[in-house]
């Protein structure tokens, strides 16, 4: 079956109703971005001296990193654990991770007061700082992802460089450069794949260490020394649901046939991974005795229950149910719930749990913050659509493929 599928650029009209809505949302975000960079953080955000971090760090950065976990989990599964049967999923997973991390980096730039000083991080880094470790790992991993994506670029353009007019003489050098890079990456890719997985494990967990330094400002439900482990385990668990959700969304939006059998097999990993996460989460709660905070009904306790019930417990049950694995709709729903759970978890750790000792003005994300976050996500989806139309990322049935002829000539089914 897999032989029938071959990654190829998707041929579809770019515009659709959904795309136009996304463009409008992206433009709205761009307008607010101009205000943010022209007038400063105070003009657009509700951030203040009591709440220095808000929606952008909680969602764009922390949740963005977690939800880009599909890249390293899939690449580990296929390339390190040699599960070749999932190979069709690697390219889209790497590409969405690449886009995800690019937008994490962009999101950070929005939040930094002196974004133009970002180069200070690798130059002046403070090795005691958790944020430094996160920053340097995300930067390196972003570069690694671009390298992992590059063979797709070379595949698209080798033998197809046809510059016109004055630039004609460049055709040959570019082509041979592409061939050289392709050959070089072919021999060294294992290094980058391993590096990507190690870097991911490092910063996914360190993101969980970030808020430990805030000490009593963080609600005890989330303030735990094993927070880095919980962040890592939840990143493992959310990687495959992200791949499933993206694959199902893309095939629906682009009119492709979803690879349900591959996705259903991938979904079998999710239940156990989520189960391990839940076990540590609950075990930590029992050991530290923080269940007492669930007795009082307030925003924090409600958010904790929502996070665990809808984001972990219900999807665990769903992923262990064959009916869900066979149904496109139910599988989509179950994956969305896991994604929702991790998103809410990151939101909770960075925003819900953060209570400063002196509150002069409570924090609620402003229209500008929400607009920019939604605008960035819209841009990311638009870029995804653009890239799958240019590059051979999504696996599609090969039109020129004639099974009978192939079997007759080669005599074997590979």
């Amino acid at each position, binding site marked *: 079956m897999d032989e029938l599928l071959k990654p190829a650029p998707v041929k579809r009209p770019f515009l659709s109703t959904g795309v136009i809505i996304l463009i409008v949302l992206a433009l709205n975000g761009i307008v607010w971005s101009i205000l943010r960079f022209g007038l400063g953080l105070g003009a657009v955000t509700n951030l203040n*001296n009591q709440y220095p971090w808000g929606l952008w760090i909680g969602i764009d950065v922390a949740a963005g990193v977690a939800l880009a976990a599909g890249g390293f989990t899939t690449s*580990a599964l296929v390339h390190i654990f040699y599960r070749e049967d999932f190979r069709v999923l690697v390219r889209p997973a790497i590409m969405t991770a690449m886009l995800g991390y690019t937008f994490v980096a962009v999101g950070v730039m929005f939040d930094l007061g*002196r974004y133009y000083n*970002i180069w200070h991080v690798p130059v002046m880094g*403070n*090795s*005691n700082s958790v944020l430094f470790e996160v920053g340097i790992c995300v930067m390196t991993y972003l570069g690694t992802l671009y390298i992992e994506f590059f063979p797709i670029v070379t595949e698209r353009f080798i033998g197809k460089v046809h510059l016109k007019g004055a630039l004609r003489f460049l055709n040959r050098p570019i082509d041979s450069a592409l061939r050289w890079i392709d050959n070089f990456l072919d*021999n060294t890719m294992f290094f980058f794949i391993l590096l990507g997985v190690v870097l991911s494990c490092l910063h996914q967990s360190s993101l969980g260490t970030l808020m430990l330094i805030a*000490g009593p400002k963080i609600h005890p439900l989330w303030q735990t020394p094993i927070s880095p482990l919980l962040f890592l385990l939840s990143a493992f668990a959310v990687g495959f649901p992200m791949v499933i959700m993206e694959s199902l969304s893309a095939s629906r939006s682009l009119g492709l046939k979803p690879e349900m059998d591959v996705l259903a097999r991938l979904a079998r990993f999710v239940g156990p991974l989520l189960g391990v996460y839940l076990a540590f989460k609950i075990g930590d709660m029992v050991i530290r005795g923080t269940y007492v905070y669930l007795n009082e009904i307030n925003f924090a306790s409600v958010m904790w229950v929502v996070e665990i019930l809808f984001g972990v417990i219900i999807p665990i049950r769903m992923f262990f149910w064959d009916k869900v694995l066979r149904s496109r709709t139910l599988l989509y729903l179950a994956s969305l719930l896991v994604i929702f759970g991790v998103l809410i978890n990151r939101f909770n750790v960075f925003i819900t749990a953060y209570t400063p000792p002196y509150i002069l003005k409570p924090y609620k994300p402003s229209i500008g913050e929400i607009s920019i976050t939604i605008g960035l996500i819209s841009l990311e989806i638009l870029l995804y659509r653009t890239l799958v139309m240019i590059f051979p990322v999504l696996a599609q049935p090969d039109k020129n493929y004639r099974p009978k002829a192939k079997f007759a000539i080669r005599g074997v089914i590979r």
Partner: protein
Amino acid sequence: MDQSRRTFLKTLGLVSFSAAGAKKSKATPTNILSDDRMGVLVDTTVCIGCRRCEYACKAEHNLPAGDIDDYNDRSVFERLRRPDADALTVVNQYPNDKEDRLPVTVKVQCMHCDHPACVSACIVGAFSKQKNGAVIWDESRCIGCRYCMVACPFQIPAFEYDKAIEPKIMKCDFCYENRTSKGGIPACVEICPVEALTFGKRYELVQLAHEKIRRNPDRYFDHLFGEHEVAGTSWLYLAGQDFKSLDFPDVGTDPAPGATEPIQHAIFKFFVPPVALYALLGGIMWLGKQNREEEE
């Protein structure tokens, strides 16, 4: 095939070594804990709430200070104020437990911790703890991430949210640049008309404070805030009543960076865990490759 396997292992080893070497050469910011570090003892039972310290601080730091007589206005005490980008120190007023007619006034500013969370947290090492006890911020390094504000247990650093370009982190700098680094005393201590603020070596101030409590047990609540809080601060407070009633935070006696540095250093000590993980995954990958080649 054998050739590629050998290059695979070679590259693996080479990379692990270079990665380990690169990490070791990294620096941490200045964080000196001198025995002779200076401090200020704030006796809130003496403070009259004249807010001259607020004026002197603004004038010293080139912030809009206004007229000194404006500071006689006591209506600002009606609501809780916090240090911000325009005021590095503020005075708040609280009801007196013992004497209704004499409210307690408390000056708030950076505590200049002995083990500062901001110094530990800052991504680019823009914060440092100087020999004389001052915790200062270096404008030339800051990237404006505001992690110091997340980390600070006393909620002190403030950010210039209105500035689109070169926003600063604003906090009390112990008048480091123009005064205390040259042997001078901080502007607020200098102007205080009732000597509620005492500048001196921290260990002497601790002795002085305990002496005061011993001599006047009725006047003082038996606790020196800052002696043990977050493992010690350069600014120390005496009060006539429980510090909780004066809005002092309950921060514990462990250093403010808490468990983050041990966790961080456990993950990165000699870069062993990441390299071990890399080697483990590389091993799995290599075995898988071998198996596949044998099948073929």
